[in-house]
């Protein structure tokens, strides 16, 4: 009897060891999927951009001031697309960063529990609305309002796209800044109050400086989000690459160009088609740099408090 039991156990152990190994390898491969994704992105962008850079030099691409990819005579200077993107990003940043920070200060330093419980879900809802909805909103909701001030403004313009991109990144800025402000120990606030400072003075001169790296990291992340934003700018900002700083004009961003090429009937394999990957690669590199930067800033700031 005892031998039988021992034998079954032994058998089981053997089988379970196999299962154990199989499972370990299986889920390890799953974890590798994310690494493969990164390699896939880099591989695809590099492979398809090489034909492009055989014909257009890197210098002409990066510093050229004329983007005329789809009709002759072709010209592939990315600066107009970059400038269009920056116009949107800066416009959105000018609105979303101060408003987001102010909301975070209000939520973390002044607001009652009840107000927090109202505003935070609203921010979450704003964050969850699909970008195509914002694009529609910019086109049919905001542009008419802008036009009511000045009828000269074209239907497609950078300003209304900037405004909706601001609304899209606002929740992220507000909630990350709120986290950063909340991480400042209460004892610092107490120290400020005990010296006879008002709540505003404590917020602005003690809490915000102490949370600065977290706030900056959230700004960098917002910047990266705004650069990669696609549908709102595709719908609302227009399709005319232009070197302009005037937000009331129609422009084209890098992302909008990518959509234009991918959804248009561009001949597969032509240089115009391959330009998609050059622009996509540039976009990927910029956002990657921004993400790594904010990751670094955040890591440093965690060390400060731990």
């Amino acid at each position, binding site marked *: 009897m005892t031998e039988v039991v021992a034998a079954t156990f032994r058998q089981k152990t053997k089988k*379970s*060891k196999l*299962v*154990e190994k199989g*499972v*370990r390898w*299986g*889920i*390890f491969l*799953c*974890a590798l*999927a*994310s*690494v493969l*994704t990164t390699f*896939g*992105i880099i591989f*695809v*962008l590099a492979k398809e951009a090489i034909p492009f850079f055989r014909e257009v030099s890197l210098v002409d691409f990066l510093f050229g001031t004329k983007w005329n990819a789809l009709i002759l005579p072709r010209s592939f200077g990315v600066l107009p697309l970059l400038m269009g993107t920056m116009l949107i990003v800066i416009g959105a940043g000018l609105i979303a960063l101060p*408003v987001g920070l*102010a*909301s975070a200060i209000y939520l973390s330093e*002044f*607001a009652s529990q009840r107000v927090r419980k109202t*505003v935070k879900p*609203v921010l979450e809802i*704003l964050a*969850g609305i*699909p*970008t*195509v909805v914002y694009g*529609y*909103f910019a086109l*049919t*909701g905001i542009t008419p309002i802008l036009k009511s001030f000045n009828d000269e403004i074209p239907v497609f313009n950078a300003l209304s796209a900037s405004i909706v991109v601001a*609304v899209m990144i606002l929740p992220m800025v507000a909630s990350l800044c709120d986290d950063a402000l909340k991480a400042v120990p209460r004892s610092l606030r107490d120290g400020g109050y005990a010296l006879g400072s008002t*709540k*505003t*003075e404590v917020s602005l001169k003690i809490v915000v400086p102490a949370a600065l790296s977290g706030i900056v990291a959230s700004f960098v992340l917002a910047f*990266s989000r705004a650069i*990669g*934003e*696609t549908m709102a700018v*595709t*719908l609302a900002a227009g399709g005319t690459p232009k070197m302009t700083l005037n937000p009331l004009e129609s422009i084209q961003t890098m*992302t909008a160009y*990518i*959509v234009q090429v*991918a*959804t248009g009937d561009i001949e*597969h394999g032509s240089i115009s088609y391959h330009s998609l*990957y050059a622009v996509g690669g540039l*976009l*990927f590199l910029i*956002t*990657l740099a*921004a*993400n*790594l930067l904010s*990751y670094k800033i955040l890591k440093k700031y965690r060390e400060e408090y731990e």
Partner: protein
Amino acid sequence: MSSPEYSSAPEFNSRLERRRAFSTIFKNSCAILSWLSIGVLGFLLVHIFSSGWEWISFDFIKNAPSRMPHKAGLFSALMGTIWIIFTTAAIAIPVGVSSALYLEEYAKKNRLNSFIEINISNLAGVPSIVYGILGLTLFVRLMKLGPSVLSGALTLSLLILPVIIIASREAIKAVPNSIRLSAFALGATQFQTVFHHVLPAAMPGIMTGVILALSRAIGETAPILMVGAVAYVSRAPHGIMDGFTALPIQIYNWAREAKVEFEGLAAGGIIVLLLVLFMMNSVAILIRNKTQKAQS
């Protein structure tokens, strides 16, 4: 009322009145800016419902897209979205949850694993359009899957994988260590411990994260547009290799039309999309609240 000159020692000029006034102004400005977001949300919803509500009807749900606004519907888009989402779930959930299990339960601290971790947090920040480029090139062209449901679902799976992994890891982390220890003490293998005890305990948290990730995938437009919009499709897919259209693509196409009726159709499509998202989020919140109650 106190006499202000006694409020601090005489070598100070505290100017409390001024500082108090500034404090009040600052606080109220911050408050107004916070409430602004509620105002924007309200304006957005009113704008969309006022122009889209009249288009919502049974015909709108069951008709195919059409050049004529009054006959147009979003049946094929709705079905496309449903196909896409279930296929995405079937791919992303097992891979994402397994990744999370590996990182939380199996991975030792070494360079490969910390590279995987950094890589995941970086992927979460890659713009969705870049996933679109990846999907278009890798799945549609190189792997010759075409502009199919499968291509779209694979693309969206890669996109939401980081979100699922991060949320699942949080849920697995929250499982008390005593559960693992007691399972090991009974002679369970790691596989048995993880799959019989840890995973079930983490399941509600994982489900919440997964539903939220899927609802993000439903709304994603850029990647699916890049993959799927290559062909014009007006019928619902019947298999994963069929071409498709989806709610966000349909909305995008309507929004681009010049005719003002299509503006209303787009708004109607948005209402349907928002309702779908609302239902999914409600389910996620329901699961979260239920488990919170059970645990407390």
